[in-house]
């Protein structure tokens, strides 16, 4: 109970500020008489949601599938690349510069090209999410593997551990926190990446929903979709955060023990 209370007190200012913003928005739209195709009043977002609730689950499912599948593949590829970079000096020299250069290619402008290659289905969207999520995961995980405490590695070697045991006992656990740091960055962008990929042509998804709403001048629906996308993005981020916490219980241990 006290914990819930403390959390409530912690988030109360932010919640109040957000509420105040919505009130200002509402009052401003009414007083200025702004037409709703330019700026809908906040209340109309809920109406739009209820109005569209029949088609929204399908769009959400599509976008979420693209984001999750892309993120999972990005994690798989990122970890594999990190392992190569960390264990083979040649791979480090070949891959690391390419990795950095690849970050300067704006992935989203590749979307039309991917549509040409892979059509309008799931694949091009997943590819975009993978391209965006891959880099932070690969770089962070590689750093984690390479920055493992050398003395810990030496200690475990002195015990008679071979390379595989050193990897299992020291290197992989050392890289877990940085892997999750990369995964969190990837998760933060995954949903947005999927939505923007859908703009280039899709048969389903929140990006398509936004494009359709725009053509119909349904600004209220665009706003509602934006809020939905933000909520889904936050939910995904929180899930990854919780997964990280669960995977690293030692980071959240209680107070130090007393005495000697």
């Amino acid at each position, binding site marked *: 109970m006290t914990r819930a209370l403390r959390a409530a007190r912690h988030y109360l200012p932010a919640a109040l500020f957000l509420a105040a913003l919505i009130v200002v928005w509402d009052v401003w739209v009414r007083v200025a008489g702004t037409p709703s195709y330019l700026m809908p009043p906040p209340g109309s977002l809920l109406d739009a949601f209820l109005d569209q609730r029949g088609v929204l689950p399908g769009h959400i499912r599509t976008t979420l599938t693209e984001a999750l599948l892309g993120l999972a593949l990005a994690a798989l590829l990122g970890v594999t690349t990190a392992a190569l970079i960390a264990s083979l000096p040649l791979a480090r020299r070949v891959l690391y510069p390419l990795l950095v250069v690849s970050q300067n290619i704006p992935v989203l402008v590749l979307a039309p090209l991917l549509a040409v290659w892979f059509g309008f289905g799931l694949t091009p969207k997943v590819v975009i999410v993978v391209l965006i999520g891959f880099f932070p995961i690969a770089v962070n995980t590689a750093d984690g593997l390479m920055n493992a*405490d050398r*003395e*810990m590695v*030496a*200690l*475990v*070697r*002195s*015990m*008679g*551990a071979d390379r595989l*045991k050193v990897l299992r*006992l*020291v290197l992989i*656990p050392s890289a*877990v926190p940085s892997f999750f740091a990369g995964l969190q960055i990837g998760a933060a962008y995954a949903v947005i990446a999927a939505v923007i990929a859908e703009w280039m042509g899709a048969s389903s998804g929140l990006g398509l929903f936004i494009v359709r709403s725009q053509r119909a001048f349904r600004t209220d629906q665009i706003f509602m979709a934006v809020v939905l996308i933000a909520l889904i993005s936050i939910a995904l981020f929180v899930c990854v955060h919780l997964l990280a916490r669960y995977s*690293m*219980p*030692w980071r959240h*241990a*209680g*107070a*130090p*023990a*007393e*005495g*000697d």
Partner: protein
Amino acid sequence: MSAAGEPALRVRSLGHSYPGDPPVAALDEIDLEAARGAFVSLLGPSGCGKSTVLQVLAGLLAPSRGEAAVDGASTIGEPGLTAYMPQRDLLLPWRRVEGNATLGAEVAGVAREEARARARELYPRFGLEGFERAWPAQLSGGMRQRLALLRTFLMPRETLLLDEPFGALDAHTRRGMQGWLQDVWGRDGRTVLLVTHDVDEALLLSDVVYVMSPRPGRIVERIAVPLPRPRHGADVTAEVFVALKARVLAALETPGAGAVE
């Protein structure tokens, strides 16, 4: 098994230079040995290469020249023959106390359940009872050091290499830990090579003290400590102890040797 009379640990003409321009000479003609079950200290000023000797014996460092062997088997390029405890406790933060305690035993091939059972017997003596499920970050400095020692003791090796195990502790805790280590070792009976720069610590704990000069490290004197055991902190004022200490200090001040704390 080694031949009778073979020392548990032997270092011969060990020399090492770290590569560079010019190369840095760290060790010069080190000779030392430890009889089976003996407690031997390597005493010298900071930076004299004491730790380098341990790294060679732990199989982590291939020296420029000379030999190092445990039970007659060369340790050069051969890790896994000794139980080595580096200066830092190097507890794995992602393993609980019990996981850290049995780490070395597990790597050496002891079954996890067997290692855990053995650890459980020793927790009380190492002052870790009730903390088996704690994370290293939750332990005090003294407890971390005792856990690192427990990890070392639980390794199925006949020779223990301890590199300034109490270096990071405050003077008071340190005195307590020295008495405790003497007790733990007395019941254990394995060979110990301890590296330290603390004269009292070396004399209180050891059967033999090797005194080293500053870099490049050489053995300047081998001093047997015939004091009866168990020894107590108060013994540092005993006549024999004071005489031995004077001898150690004189050895440390031989030409080329520097001051120690």
